């Protein structure tokens, strides 16, 4: 049975009943009310998924689409999305993603009449973005933004690419789009050079495994529909689009799909927009999408992500951990774990643990990470006794196993990320490798350890009553 968002809601209610909070009171997403609530919760370090039953649309009216927010803000929910035990949220989740990411599961095509996303079809003037409860996120954002996944198709080889890209609402059928020079941008560039529009289908809501799959770090040329299927654990069901028919297929089990043409010769001002870095990207001159059709389920839910916060960070980190684990382990077979911590927006910092056998493996692992994902800026490599999911342990290793003049490498003029505010060049950045592993070639101090036997025979509950123990800070 094909995975759908509605099925995940039920799974979430059954397995993590406190994780999905339904808000019955009316809310105005375009007036920052949704992000204000999310910020209040974040200030209290609470990260539930929120389902707003009565959001207002961009006309100020009650929308017929409930609004889903913050779904990806915890690794526990992401583990559940992949059909795992939520308690396996750390290393097992990374390794499971890595295992699935090594395969492809080809999509299947179903007739339009059987596709849930075609229950309601609106074309041309009937398609109206203002019907949706689109969120305005941060103070300097000029408009509500759709922040989910445009799909594009390579004009030469026919593979599909999916990416999270921001879309500024400019009119009922007009969107701005920002692309960094990555895969979708390459597709757009190819079409633009031939003065052709680029077909785009924005997948607004789907089962969360779809989005975890969409963020794979595969090379340009890999069909994302096949890779998404591998992460979902089943063939992704596709169906013909309204605008291009069988020449461009869309996910049949999405809640909502917006179709449109990315124009080759139109640029308009777009942004500032609060980005994943926690800063605003500057106002720029960016391409424009003309919307041609909107299709959706009858009871469709509209989803957004809280960009620049955990919802956006955690979602981006898990696929990178899996993809880079496979890449690095191919070069350093004793690689134990890869983690993208919250402190680096789950993108800029990469922690790698290896069971180092010879000096130099550290550098190999780090260089593989830097080459494999251009988001990675600072790599810290630690020994296998360090839990990379425990940042305190990682920084303890940096404090006690690293000498700045011997174990830090600076690599200048590497392709970076255009949204990193510390970059002084628009494209190039400086990468840093921190080797916080113990040297193999010389004796090194031993880590403290209370004898295992003593730990085994001396039980807390034998000395401290549970009532007292539970009350301890």
């Amino acid at each position: 049975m094909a995975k759908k968002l509605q099925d995940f809601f039920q799974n979430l209610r059954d397995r993590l009943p406190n994780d999905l909070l339904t808000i019955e009171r009316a809310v105005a997403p375009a007036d920052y009310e949704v992000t204000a609530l999310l910020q209040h919760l974040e200030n209290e370090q609470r990260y539930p998924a929120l389902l707003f039953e009565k959001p207002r649309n961009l006309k100020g009216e009650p929308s017929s689409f409930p609004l889903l927010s913050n779904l990806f803000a915890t690794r526990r929910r992401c583990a559940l999305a992949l059909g795992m035990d939520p308690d396996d949220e750390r290393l097992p989740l990374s390794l499971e993603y890595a295992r699935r990411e090594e395969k492809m599961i080809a999509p299947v095509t179903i007739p339009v009449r059987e596709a849930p996303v075609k229950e309601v079809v609106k074309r041309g003037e009937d398609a109206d973005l203002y019907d949706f409860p689109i969120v305005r996120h941060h103070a300097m954002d000029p408009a509500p933004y759709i922040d989910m996944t445009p799909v594009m198709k390579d004009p030469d080889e026919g593979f599909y690419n999916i990416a999270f890209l921001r879309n500024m609402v400019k009119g009922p059928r007009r969107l701005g789009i920002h692309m960094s020079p990555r895969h979708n941008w390459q597709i757009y560039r190819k079409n633009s050079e031939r003065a052709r529009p680029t077909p785009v289908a924005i997948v607004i809501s789907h089962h969360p495994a779809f989005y975890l799959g969409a963020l794979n770090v595969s090379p340009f040329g890999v069909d994302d529909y096949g890779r998404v299927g591998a992460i979902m654990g089943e063939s992704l069901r596709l169906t013909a689009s309204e605008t291009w028919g069988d020449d461009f297929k869309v996910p049949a089990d999405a809640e909502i799909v917006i179709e449109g043409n990315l124009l080759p010769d139109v640029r308009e001002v777009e942004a500032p927009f609060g980005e994943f870095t926690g800063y605003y990207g500057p106002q720029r001159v960016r391409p424009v999408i003309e919307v041609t059709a909107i299709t959706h389920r009858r009871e469709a839910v509209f989803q957004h992500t809280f960009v620049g916060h955990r919802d956006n960070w955690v979602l981006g980190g898990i696929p990178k951990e899996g993809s880079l684990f496979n890449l690095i382990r191919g070069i350093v077979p004793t690689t134990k774990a890869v983690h993208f911590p919250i402190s680096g927006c789950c993108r800029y910092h990469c922690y790698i643990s290896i069971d180092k056998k010879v000096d130099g493996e550290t550098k190999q692992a780090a260089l593989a990470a830097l080459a494999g994902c251009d988001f990675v800026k600072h790599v810290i490599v630690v020994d296998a006794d360090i839990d990379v999911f425990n940042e305190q342990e990682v920084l303890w290793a940096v404090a006690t196993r690293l000498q700045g003049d011997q174990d830090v490498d600076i690599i200048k003029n590497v392709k970076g990320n255009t949204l990193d505010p510390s970059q002084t060049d628009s494209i190039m950045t400086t990468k840093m490798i921190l080797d916080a592993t113990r040297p193999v070639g010389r004796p090194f101090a031993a880590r403290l350890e209370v004898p295992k036997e003593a730990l085994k025979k001396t039980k807390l509950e034998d000395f401290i009553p549970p009532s007292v123990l539970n009350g301890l800070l």
Partner: protein
Amino acid sequence: MAKIFWVTCPQCQGDFYCHSEELRHKKIQLLCPYCSHRFLDEESPKIVE
């Protein structure tokens, strides 16, 4: 990040920033994110770059 310049909206006095290479001295109207006023960079009462 690319080089940026800060501008002030002549209508609402709100401050925001733009991509220098794409929008400074380009005769392209900027969009104030606070009041939607459109103006040229040279109309800004203050520019920090």
